[in-house]
């Protein structure tokens, strides 16, 4: 086993060897991505086993171009975040070096009461390769073996030393950041990810976890740099049920379902609401998306119109369905006159983008335009005089009237005509997603017109979005940006042109899109580094 890792190390040496034009750096770090909470948890579970508990808090993320994934290339680790990483690292290391875990370790020391550099090195190399998603350098192993030896000798306990060696790996920058390294391509004019970084990007996209042994082996052998080798791995990963884990993470990010973490509802007006309903609403949306796109291999546009969903007891209360079924979750099909239409009328979307005590057409409109059509509502221009919509008369009674007052003003209209119509069609649903036809005694007008298209209600909106080519294009753009950790607004449509064509040709099957992207060279490409912004192409002296 040890030989295998020495081989791996020598491969790394080979890859880092100079093979570049004098003016360009021999390698660049194309992106440095802070692990998300799910990526961290999944990685630890896959590396050490599901029995290892991860207890701790993760730093919040932000959205860039509609995706948290894109913020992972912008954010760093603050002292608060590191404090948490260091505690989690030790807690995991304690569990892995504990008595009951020892049979799973790749070796046992000659004497459990003494240091054993050989065995320490073997264990740290084994886990280190999975944690760092590449073989460790000699220095990285040596410094940790020395740490473990010192502490093992003093405490007369091999495993006490091992614990700290492992802990040092688990909080290293190479674990908490996914460092994606690019090398000059054969044409010397562009850059592309090195094999281990390819494996990493692919694995986190499809499974939302660290690359497994087979993928790392393929990277080590250079297979991921050939189309056939890459295709083989993409097919393998896509055939696994773990693809669902990966796509759930993508959908969770794309649909902004984390918004629920901070949504509160007015407990007097909506006593039904609680965190259990929020969690159920999130799950309903994910089940619907996974069910239609992966399990049924359906047309992704149908997510806008389908009457099929999944409900549990919590949601039955919101949707006012008799909960006569047994089991936690059941598939359910809304009736034709339910007014429901796919994701847009699910509790998740309706409740997340509302106020605590009332619905908000503006919030809903802005969110849906951004999430589903990749059309963020522009910020108001500098120094807008909001006093032009100051309403002192108090004569405007409904939300629609107040919004229309904005839309009637040229300055405000530029934004409000963009997002409000979509939101107004959903006024037939209250702030927690319940259906209603009247507000304060007046019948709610749920009609809208966007650039000549006239429609009404959630079903009209669903149909409008289903037929709008911007929706599938937006999914493709977000998936590409998600996989690469980029701002979706900066992604050029030409970057995923071929896979998008395959996607449309297939009848909008998500799997075709995933396969096309994950096996395309563009997905692994990197910009040529500018000489000014890159450190001199010095080699790591000890490599």
């Amino acid at each position, binding site marked *: 086993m040890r030989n295998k890792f020495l081989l791996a190390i020598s491969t790394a040496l080979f890859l880092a060897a100079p093979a570049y034009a004098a003016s360009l750096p021999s390698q*660049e770090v194309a992106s440095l991505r802070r692990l998300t909470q799910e990526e961290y948890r999944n990685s630890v579970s896959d590396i050490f086993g599901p029995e290892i508990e991860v207890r701790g808090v993760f730093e919040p993320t932000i959205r860039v171009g509609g995706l948290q994934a894109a913020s992972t290339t912008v954010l760093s*680790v603050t002292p608060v975040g590191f404090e948490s990483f260091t505690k989690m690292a030790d807690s995991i290391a304690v569990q892995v070096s504990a008595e009951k875990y020892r049979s799973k370790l790749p070796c046992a020391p000659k004497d459990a009461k003494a240091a054993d550099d050989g065995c320490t090195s073997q264990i740290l190399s084994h886990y280190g390769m999975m944690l760092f998603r590449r073989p460790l350098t000699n220095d990285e192993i040596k410094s940790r073996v020395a*740490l473990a030896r*010192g502490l093992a000798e003093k405490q007369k306990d091999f495993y006490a030393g091992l614990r700290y060696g492992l802990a040092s790996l688990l909080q290293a920058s190479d674990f908490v950041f996914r460092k994606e390294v690019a090398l000059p391509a054969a044409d010397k004019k562009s850059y592309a990810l090195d094999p281990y970084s390819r494996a990493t990007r692919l694995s986190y996209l499809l499974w939302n976890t660290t690359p497994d042994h087979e993928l790392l082996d393929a990277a080590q052998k250079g297979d991921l740099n050939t189309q056939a080798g890459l295709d083989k791995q993409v097919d393998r990963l896509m055939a696994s049920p773990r693809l669902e884990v990966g796509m759930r993470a993508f959908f969770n990010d794309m649909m902004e379902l984390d918004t629920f973490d901070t949504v509160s509802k*007015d407990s007097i*007006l909506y006593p039904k609401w609680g965190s259990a309903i929020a969690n159920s609403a999130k799950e309903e949306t994910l089940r619907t998306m996974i069910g239609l796109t992966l399990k049924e291999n359906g047309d992704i546009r149908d997510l806008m119109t389908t009457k099929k969903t999944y409900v549990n007891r919590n949601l039955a209360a919101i949707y006012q369905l008799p909960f006569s079924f047994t089991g936690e979750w059941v598939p359910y099909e809304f009736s034709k006159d339910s007014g429901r239409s796919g994701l847009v009328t699910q509790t998740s979307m309706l409740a997340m983008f509302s106020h605590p005590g009332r619905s908000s057409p503006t919030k809903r409109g802005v969110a849906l335009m951004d999430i589903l059509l990749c059309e963020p509502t522009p910020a108001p221009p500098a120094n807008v005089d909001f006093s032009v919509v100051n309403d002192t008369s108090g004569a405007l009674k409904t939300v629609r009237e107040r919004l229309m007052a904005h839309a009637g003003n040229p300055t405000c209209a530029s934004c409000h005509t963009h997002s409000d119509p979509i939101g107004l069609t959903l006024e037939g649903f209250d702030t927690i997603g319940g259906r209603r036809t009247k507000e304060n005694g007046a019948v709610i007008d749920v009609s809208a017109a966007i650039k000549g298209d006239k429609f009404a209600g959630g079903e009209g909106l669903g149909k409008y979005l289903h037929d709008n080519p911007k929706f599938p294009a937006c999914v493709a753009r977000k998936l590409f940006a998600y996989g690469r950790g980029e701002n979706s607004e900066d992604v050029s449509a030409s970057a995923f042109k071929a896979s998008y064509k395959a996607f449309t040709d297939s009848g909008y099957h998500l799997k075709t899109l995933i396969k096309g992207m994950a096996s395309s060279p563009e997905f692994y490409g990197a910009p040529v580094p500018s000489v000014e912004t*890159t450190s001199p192409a010095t080699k790591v002296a000890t490599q």
Partner: protein
Amino acid sequence: MKLDRRFLLRGTCQGALAVIGMPFLDCFLDSKGKALAATGRALPTRFGTYFYGLGLTKQLWIPKNGGKDWDMTTQLKPLEPMRSKINVWSGLRVPLDDNPNYQHWSGAAASATGISPTKQGEFDSKSIDQQIADSISHGTRFKSVAAAAAGDPKQSYSSLGGANTLPAEATPLSLYTRLFGPGFQDPSKGDWKPDPQVMIQQSVLSVVAEDRKRAMQNLSAADKVRMDQYFTSVREAELQMAAELQKPEIQAKVTIPEAPPEMVANNALPNLRKTVPLMAKLGALAMATDQTRVFNFSVSEPGSQIFVPGDTLGYHQSTHEEPIDPVLGYQPRVSTYNIDNMELFVTFLKEMDSIPEGDGTLLDHSLFFAFTDQSFAKIHAVDGLPIFTAGGASGRMKTGYHTPGDGSAVSRVGLTIQKAMGVSLETWGKGSMETKSPYTELLA
């Protein structure tokens, strides 16, 4: 492996501790330890921020008179008990230069950095608390601590610059755990001894920090900054552990309470009335026991989503949708929320003032900066933000004054604060907000 000096020192001590169990005082009470143990050390001056959303109602809060004899107003009334310990500014300007007026952001960011922000939700420099922490936090366990009363860790206006916000502890329990959970050395316990485990963890961090040189290679300029921040965070964890190895000194006669229960923390006003005093108390205790000298607190986000249950609009929506009452000349419901905010603020200050310390209270040995996002929220106005300081900064800041509008930029307050905190700087802020003029009349 190259054994560095610190590792050897720690290793030796650790060995002695773990194997022989010899007294470790000789090993750890270095010159600094003795200094800490010595009596009569001056109390440190602490700093804090208090963020509240959506400002106040102009017609109801601005005193007519400046100076010390300012007339009490409807909306400042809740602050009456603290009047002699606060300062009020009413007419500060927030020139945005060529940047947009980012709604519910520009005013807050300008107050905290003296710089008109170029991006929504991001600060164009470190926030003022971090600038001050760089100067006053040496030797404390936490360089700074942020807390948010409404349950959202993102409601922190303490920033390392850009999008790198220092997350807030967002419930009383999580704040308690961070401050007084594992790692806390209770100064009132007579049997204090350094935890050998902390020393081992320090040696682990040394190994992590050794990767720095290699980790910084081949990074873009932006990623270098991010990686550098990671290693700065590693360094802070090392310093935190170093502080945990020092015998803590009692700064004030306080008892650390039991952990608070799990409780709902959100924007509902009744919940905030519970979380604000509890979290303020914990922050006060943290400063009194020198766990931290910088405590940042937020009661809501900018564009405050505070609501009274049963009110379908809530605070923020009310500011935009509630009509201005033609007789009163202002928005009555908004005005009520404004006053609720001042009541929460005084609750916070009372906790700071309730801990006796030397010849006064913790508040007297602190300086708090309270700021907000808007002056007239209905139209997202930023000129005339209601700005406060509280506490005498150990006698370096005069208190009890109202400074009426004199056309000054809001950054003058930030500069004055830093002068009072002993930060050495001559100018603060950028563009039209760059200033060299602190309010010298308020500095003692």
